[in-house]
């Protein structure tokens, strides 16, 4: 299977190199001056993609917890608020939400007399973070619920409040089970950050689009774009595996 993949991708990449017309890998050939300039231009979007993804993921992890905790409350009102947030947010497709935040939200601010401009950078971050937080909240919920009820009861009988029980007993245990799906969500955010290109954010996908317009070599440029995302995701996966190993060994100790 592995051999098949390798030979197939070699074929795809090499197929056009020397032959006529249809292939034009020269646009991203780092050996030539023009090709190198193009490759540098494409890769220069990497910083923005990483920034948007990391900040959005960080906000989503906090926001998700703030949504999940009331969902575990004994008060019905809190649970309903949490439920409505999750159901509402996760039903909105990312692209419409992005348009709403970028083009719509400033108008709401204006009507309230506030002058808060939303640039593509923060527009993308807000959208990704809010959209993802509904899923993060669900991950927290299942992680918290996977800890046996006896743990909460034992914490109560030694006098801990609800917040203390969460902080010192439940979350430290839940975090190990939460980590893999949260990492999954982070990969999802990295990929969805490509949508930020449509509101003019200069990230990986936007750079590729702009280069395609001037060079008109979509196949070659988008192939490189895919490889860029692939490398990003592989790096994240390796990082998560390292983190899991560290936490796993901690539990066995």
């Amino acid at each position, binding site marked *: 299977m592995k051999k098949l993949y390798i030979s197939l991708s070699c074929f795809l990449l090499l197929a056009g190199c020397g032959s006529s017309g249809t292939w034009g890998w020269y646009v991203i050939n780092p050996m030539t001056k023009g090709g190198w300039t193009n490759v540098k231009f494409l890769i220069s979007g990497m910083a923005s993609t990483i920034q948007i993804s990391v900040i959005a993921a960080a906000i989503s992890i906090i926001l998700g917890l703030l949504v999940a905790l009331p969902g575990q409350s004994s008060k019905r009102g809190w649970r309903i608020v949490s439920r409505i947030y999750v159901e509402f947010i996760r039903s909105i497709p990312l692209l419409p939400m992005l348009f709403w935040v970028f083009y719509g939200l400033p108008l709401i601010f204006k009507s309230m007399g506030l002058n808060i401009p939303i640039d593509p950078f923060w527009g993308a971050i807000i959208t990704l973070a809010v959209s993802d937080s509904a899923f993060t909240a669900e991950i927290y919920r299942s992680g918290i619920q996977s800890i046996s009820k006896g743990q909460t*009861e*034992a914490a109560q*009988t030694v006098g*801990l409040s609800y917040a203390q029980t969460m902080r010192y*007993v439940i979350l430290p245990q839940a975090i190990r089970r939460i980590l893999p799906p949260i990492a999954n969500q982070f990969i999802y955010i990295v990929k969805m950050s490509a949508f930020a290109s449509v509101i003019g954010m200069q990230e990986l996908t936007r750079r590729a689009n702009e280069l395609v317009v001037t060079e008109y070599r979509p196949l070659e440029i988008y192939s490189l774009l895919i490889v860029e995302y692939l490398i990003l995701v592989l790096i994240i996966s390796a990082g998560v595996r390292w983190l899991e190993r560290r936490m796993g060994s901690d539990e066995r100790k």
Partner: protein
Amino acid sequence: MPETAIELVDVNKWFDDFHVLKDINLTVNTGEKVVICGPSGSGKSTVVRCINRLEEHQKGVIRLNGVELTNDPRSISSIQGDVGMVFQQFNLFPHLTVLDNLTLGPMKARSLSRSDAEDRARHYLERVRIPDQVDKKPSQLSGGQQQRVAIARSLCMEPKVLLFDEPTSALDPEMISEVLDVMVELATEGMTMIVVTHEMGFARKVADKMIFMDEGEIVEQAAPEEFFGNPRTERCRKFLSQILQH
């Protein structure tokens, strides 16, 4: 006149339509040891869980040292810590060391300093005879050791009453006596205890009062000599003969 520690007056509880506790009346004086037995599903654990507010009762009155327990969160947090609880499944915190299991409550709920809490923890670990395992995780201890750590964890809160919910039911037979020994010692030192158990040898040794429950009711309530020697009801006689025949 002995001081009343716990008083239950006509306590009723339902799980949805299921009537788990029916008109429970029970008085426990300070320093008294009460053993509750009965077939599974008879509501004996529920009685204990109502006393420390892990469950709510719907009708009747529960008083702890004369103060009525309501479902008001403030009343709940004020009693938890005063009423210690030892669970069948130990419920130690698996991510914390033995020492941290014991200091968490005193430090967070009683605002003790770390060194005071650790002194207290070591003191009680010595009393349950596991002083040299403080840095281990609960999973590295045997069941009997884990349950003794759980008892020490309750004692660290210096509770006025200690509740035991089938403390030896999840243990391998050879570990039961090490836990019971610690409980007997606590009993002789004057701790007020309510123990749900089927360990009748323990009951004979320490109980001031025996209670037999069946189908949510207290069927029989007597001193141990009378309870074991001359059970008044047929249900109680049958239950005792079943668990004592070995």
